[in-house]
């Protein structure tokens, strides 16, 4: 296991300790496996919480910060946190204006967040709204949106909802904008190697030496095909064409794009993909605003990349460009 760790059982907790030790001005850990913003809450501001399995930094915990999220419930590697932790996180961030639960569409997380919302309403009288981002086009057809998984595109929802909350929009408005951003983003990924789950000490699946898998999920969920590795331009074209088929862009559209590494794939190769993406977008007359290239949603040391495209309008563009600050992203 080519990982830097102590006891695999402590992987998540030691990671959180290090995160808070390194950035005490950004993150606080008020309770076991709960991260919130450091400092005082802003009274009357809508809180935004997320949560999910570990192993995806900066997702989920990393996006707690100014203009972004208020809290995160942290599960084990690739495992949902409990509803109780989520409820605790909701309580921790509530500043009297209600809380939006905004996370990726995975069965366990959805059930637990729903349960948590029920709990804080039953016990604490905190108003909540919920939205599970489902941007992974490879995981289900557009007609079965509720089966689509949430992947890297969710960071656009974090950013836009976070900016709205920072401007003191109310819960309904923050939830509307989160849903709008989420509805406007589509993603598609591919992988070349899986990653190692610390407690298992080995990879969840194996991909042949000269093989890649298109559409593979960030936990190794099966994709649309597995076969010989294609050239970078062909990979980008297939991802782009799939997204275009799902939600076509045309002349005059404005978008933000995210070319994301799943972990091991280096920046160099993301830029090789971006180069082709820029050609494809300019061919159809689409303008790019604030492109993101880097490691924004990972699966530890998985090799692979994903492409997310967010369609913008004035409202979304304005919120996307608003100031934000966490240890992994500054706008």
């Amino acid at each position: 296991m080519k990982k830097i760790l102590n006891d695999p059982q402590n992987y998540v907790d030691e990671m959180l300790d290090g995160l808070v030790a390194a950035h005490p001005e950004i993150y606080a850990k008020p309770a076991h496996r709960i991260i919130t913003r450091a400092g005082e809450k802003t009274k009357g501001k809508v809180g935004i919480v997320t949560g999910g399995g570990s192993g995806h930094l900066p997702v989920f915990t990393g996006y707690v910060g100014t203009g972004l999220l208020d809290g995160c419930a942290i599960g084990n590697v690739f495992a949902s946190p409990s509803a109780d932790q989520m409820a605790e996180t909701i309580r921790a961030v509530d500043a009297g204006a209600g809380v939006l639960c905004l996370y990726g569409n995975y069965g366990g997380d959805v059930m637990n967040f729903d349960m948590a919302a029920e709990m804080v309403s039953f016990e604490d009288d905190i108003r909540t709204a919920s939205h599970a981002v489902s941007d992974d086009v490879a995981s289900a057809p557009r007609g079965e949106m509720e089966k689509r998984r949430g992947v890297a595109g969710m960071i656009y929802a974090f950013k836009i909802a976070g900016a709205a909350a920072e401007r003191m929009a109310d819960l309904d408005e923050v939830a509307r904008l989160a849903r709008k951003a989420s509805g406007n983003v589509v993603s598609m990924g591919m992988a070349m190697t899986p990653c190692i789950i610390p407690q298992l000490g080995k990879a969840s699946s194996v991909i042949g030496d000269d093989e890649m898998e298109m559409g593979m999920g960030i936990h190794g969920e099966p994709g649309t095909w597995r076969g010989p590795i294609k050239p970078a331009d062909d990979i980008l074209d297939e991802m782009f064409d799939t997204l275009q088929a799902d939600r076509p862009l045309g002349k005059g559209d404005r978008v933000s794009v995210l070319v994301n590494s799943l972990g091991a794939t280096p920046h160099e190769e993301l830029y090789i993909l971006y180069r082709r993406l820029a050609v494809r977008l300019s061919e159809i007359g689409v303008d790019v605003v604030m492109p993101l290239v880097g490691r924004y949603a990972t699966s530890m040391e998985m090799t692979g990349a994903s492409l997310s495209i967010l369609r913008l309008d004035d409202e979304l563009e304005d919120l996307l460009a608003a100031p934000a600050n966490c240890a992994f992203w500054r706008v």
Partner: protein
Amino acid sequence: MEITSNELKAALARIAEHAGENREFLCQADAQLGDGDLGITVAEGFSACAKLDLSDDVGRAFFEMARTFQQVSSSSFGTLVATGLMAAAKALKDRTEFGPDEIAGLLAQARDAMLARGKSSLGEKTVLDGLDAQVHALEAERSGALMETAVTAARDTVEKFTQRPNQAGRARIFAEKSVGLPDPGQLALVVITEGLR
């Protein structure tokens, strides 16, 4: 005989013991189609509940169980069980006892809440098919052999569904492979109901 908080506590102890004995069995069943943690979820969830000092208010008691169960496990089955317990908590709020004849109704409410939580439907080869079979069997049951009826309904469900593909939860990904394998959640319901006797 009416059921009070004391009966609930005794029942939890019996389930916890039986679930402990079946821990490995359920983990192995889950490992075939999922992540192999179901035995842990069921055994530790009920073991923690059995240690609770339950309120006399049976509604409150079910709430305490729900909360405890999902603290221990955040896997799907744990959250679904907690959801079912929560449904019972709401139905029994401010009462100190309930009758055997209410059980079918409570199970039906749990089933519906769990369907909503899991965003799944009956017939998808999950624990909910077992629960649904129990609801119908108990509604038809007049002899008073409630426990035997429930165990039989749960067991029959496993058999009825084994040759079908899983259509919900993690196992859905392995739909083809799942044909011929019993659904782990349906097996867990058998274990839990056996423990209740």
